[in-house]
């Protein structure tokens, strides 16, 4: 007994030790994922398995450019008013540039210098006293880039403030945004989240054109435009307002927004302006006492109160007969800032939690059944050689789980299919090797020789086959999206792990147990009849 044990110690080799380490590594690092413990790195379930919302958003960056132009116009007006430069005909043209006319020739130098100093990234062209101001190409490009980056940050802030667990917001490609929100329980919640993301939260304070407002119901949009005005609807009533197109100030000067309640206990949003905003607001209200100022959010008028006196301190209130949840979401959107450019949905996939659970159940069942079938088949067909192959297969499964856990990889439904498929294909290496060993045994080689030559004969075939499959998987990973990437990933990890378990591991096991293999029991060990053994 002791001697026999000793013989197994003697034949211990680096291959089997390496395999043992791989097995221990695999088991240890897949435990957190298998037990779903709080600690340790584990596999994240894809949205298709745990339920959630996946969206690919596009961005209308031309709107960001337009609003840059608009705010340029507001700046021009502010600068000229401040420096008492007299001007006229300040207009926006096609959302691309602004034009204006100076009335006094003496102001030209001062005006051009001021604009150059205050407005970076713009090009000013002059024709007599008529000027046109546009953005430089580099500035346009920068604005586009900025718009998408800002959208990514803003959406992330909003989702974080909403209190969702681990949302993902990332730029994809040049002009797309990927949003993934796991763990949404109901369709209603999903709708709320979508609205929160989409909310431009573009706040503007605009002056009402009191001279012409009486005619607003019959005025065309084109006519309003010719006065430098714009017609906007009320949020709750069919009423319309004629407003100066260039706003007094906008949401970029806002520092905080909170839900509060007015005297009739209706939810309202109180917001605070920064120093510059408060000054502009104070100046404006001081100058236009007796007139109305509209609070406009996303091109809808929420209120248009009369200015009774100069309002300092920069505190403004939006009331609009809100639901409490609506006011809550709106305050988040205002706090996280406006989207420079609106986003739209290019692709959306949402999976309810119950469907995800069903998918896990059915694919696990398929995995177990497939696994059991393969394991039984291998034992039936190859005897102990099949058992060795099965040990490698189990090692392979643990390794896949461990590697995915360590990288915090995402397991998707196609990823599960990838693992199931790996079970079928990982034993392939052992089938090839076992067939080679059998061939050599039939040719009358000794067991030791048959094993060694079997492995070396089988190696090139396994290698070439695995490399070509890896090529296909890599392409799939590079070109695939979302869930398909998961399939390519698990398959690639499975193939790489099988090189270690199915080739190195099983070879080591044979070398280790070689002294125990009885050449008179080839049926038990390799599943073949003894004949051919000279």
């Amino acid at each position, binding site marked *: 007994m002791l001697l026999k044990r000793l013989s197994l110690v003697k034949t211990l080799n680096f291959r089997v030790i390496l395999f043992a380490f791989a097995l221990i590594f695999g088991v240890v690092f897949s435990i957190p994922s298998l037990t779903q413990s709080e600690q340790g790195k584990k596999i994240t379930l894809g949205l298709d398995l745990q339920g959630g919302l996946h*969206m690919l958003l*596009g961005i209308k960056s031309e709107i960001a450019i337009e609003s840059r132009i608009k705010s340029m116009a507001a700046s021009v007006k502010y600068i000229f008013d401040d420096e008492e430069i007299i001007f006229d005909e300040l207009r926006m043209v096609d959302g691309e540039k602004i034009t204006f006319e100076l009335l006094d020739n003496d102001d030209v130098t001062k005006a051009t210098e001021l604009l150059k100093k205050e407005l970076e990234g713009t090009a000013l062209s002059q024709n007599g006293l008529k000027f046109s101001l546009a953005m430089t190409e580099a500035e346009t490009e920068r604005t586009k880039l900025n718009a998408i980056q800002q959208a990514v940050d803003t959406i992330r802030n909003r989702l974080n403030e909403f209190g969702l667990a681990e949302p993902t917001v990332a730029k994809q490609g040049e002009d797309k945004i990927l949003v993934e929100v796991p763990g949404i329980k109901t369709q209603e919640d999903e*709708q709320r989240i*979508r*609205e929160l*993301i*989409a909310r431009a939260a573009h706040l503007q304070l605009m002056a009402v054109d009191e001279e012409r407002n009486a005619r607003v119901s019959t005025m065309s949009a084109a006519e309003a435009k010719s006065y430098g005005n714009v017609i906007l609807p009320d949020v709750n009533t069919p009423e319309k307002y004629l407003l100066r197109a260039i706003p007094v100030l906008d949401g970029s000067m806002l520092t905080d927004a909170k839900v509060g309640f007015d005297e009739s206990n209706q939810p309202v949003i109180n917001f605070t302006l920064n120093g510059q905003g408060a000054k502009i607001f104070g100046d404006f209200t001081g100058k236009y006492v007796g007139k109305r100022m509209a609070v406009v959010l996303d091109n809808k008028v929420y209120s248009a109160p009369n200015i009774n006196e100069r309002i300092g301190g920069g505190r403004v209130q939006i009331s609009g007969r809100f639901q409490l949840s609506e006011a809550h979401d709106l305050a988040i959107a205002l706090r996280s800032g406006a989207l420079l450019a609106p*986003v739209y*949905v*290019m*692709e*959306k*996939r*949402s*999976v*309810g939690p*119950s*469907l995800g659970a069903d*998918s896990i159940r059915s*694919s696990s*069942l*398929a995995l177990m*059944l*497939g*696994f059991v*079938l*393969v394991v039984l*088949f*291998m034992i039936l*067909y*190859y005897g102990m050689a099949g058992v060795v192959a099965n040990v490698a297969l189990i090692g392979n499964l643990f390794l896949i789980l461990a590697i995915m856990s360590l990288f915090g990889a995402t397991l998707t*439904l196609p990823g599960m299919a990838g693992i*199931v*498929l790996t*079970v*079928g294909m990982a034993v*392939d290496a052992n*089938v090839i090797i076992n*067939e080679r060993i*059998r*061939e050599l045994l*039939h040719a009358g080689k000794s067991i030791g020789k048959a094993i060694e030559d079997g492995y070396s004969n089988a190696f090139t*075939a396994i290698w*070439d*086959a695995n490399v*070509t*499959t890896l*090529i*296909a*998987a*890599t*392409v*799939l990973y*590079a*070109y*695939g*999206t979302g869930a*398909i990437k998961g*399939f390519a990933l698990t398959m690639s990890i499975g193939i790489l792990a099988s090189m270690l378990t199915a080739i190195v591991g099983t070879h080591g096991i044979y070398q280790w147990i070689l002294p125990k293999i009885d050449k008179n029991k080839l049926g038990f060990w390799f599943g*073949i009849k003894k004949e051919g053994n000279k």
Partner: protein
Amino acid sequence: MEIFKYKKPLSLMSKSKRFGLLSVAVLVFALGLIFTKGFNYGIDFAGGTLIQVQYEGKAPIDKVRDAIDTDNTYEGATVTFFGSEDEIVIKTKMSSKNLGEDVGDKVRALLKDTGKFEVRRVDMVGAKVGSELREQGIMSMLLAILGILIYVSFRFEWRFAVASVLALVHDVTIAMGMIVLFGIEVNLDILAALLTILGYSLNDTIIVFDRIREGINTIKNPDLGEIIDESVSRTLSRTTLTSLTTFFVVLTLFMFGGEIIHGFSFTLLVGVVVGTYSSIFVASPILMWLGFSVSGYREKQAVKLKREKEKEKMRAMYENGTL
């Protein structure tokens, strides 16, 4: 247990014309289907919206159809059972760009009087994304084939590469034909399945080719037909066994994996069968038809070997300082 015990080589090459004809016939049939009936593109590639709804108890499918019909923006929408009697899937070509106005929300509102239900999945793909995904799909297929072509040329010889790629095209085309024949909806997962078939069928072919390569170097007789017969017969056991194990697991996936991966596993089932057939009966004859010459290959190998030896000799001389 031994099922395919090697005794003497099967004479496959003498029958290769028959298998060739069979393959060509099936290929023509598959291509005919693809070009006349065409693919049934799902929303991933065509764009549109898919809504999966589960009812408590049997789904009132007629009521659902009526409810959907009341809104004419959903003209052409289809409503079908999905996997079981209590689940349905509504598909429409509509997609909405507006985040707030989701097609899923609207359908939920339309269905509110049809019974107790839960919306379990809403997938919406814009038309632009759909066409992008389709382009990407075709690109990935071509790139994978190109990569394989290069690798196999490098490891074997160009005729092996061409033969294996032709066998691949054979398998993928037939699988696509079956997809059309059974009206399987083509989505991203089907693309993944086709790419898996690509890898799998290649796997099989490479194992056989590896044996042929070995045979060329070890079998004295330079007749390619006999070398192929011998090699294919020697690997027959492995080819069938691996195909069987893979077939088993794909079959369990098909039967128990759930409705969502039905198309995926169906495509793989076809692929496993066709891939096995092609690596035994199709790939090797192509090698022969391409005019692969054993003696030519051996000469080239000999020249290569000689050149390498000379190089080594030169290096040795250089290292010894005699050059």
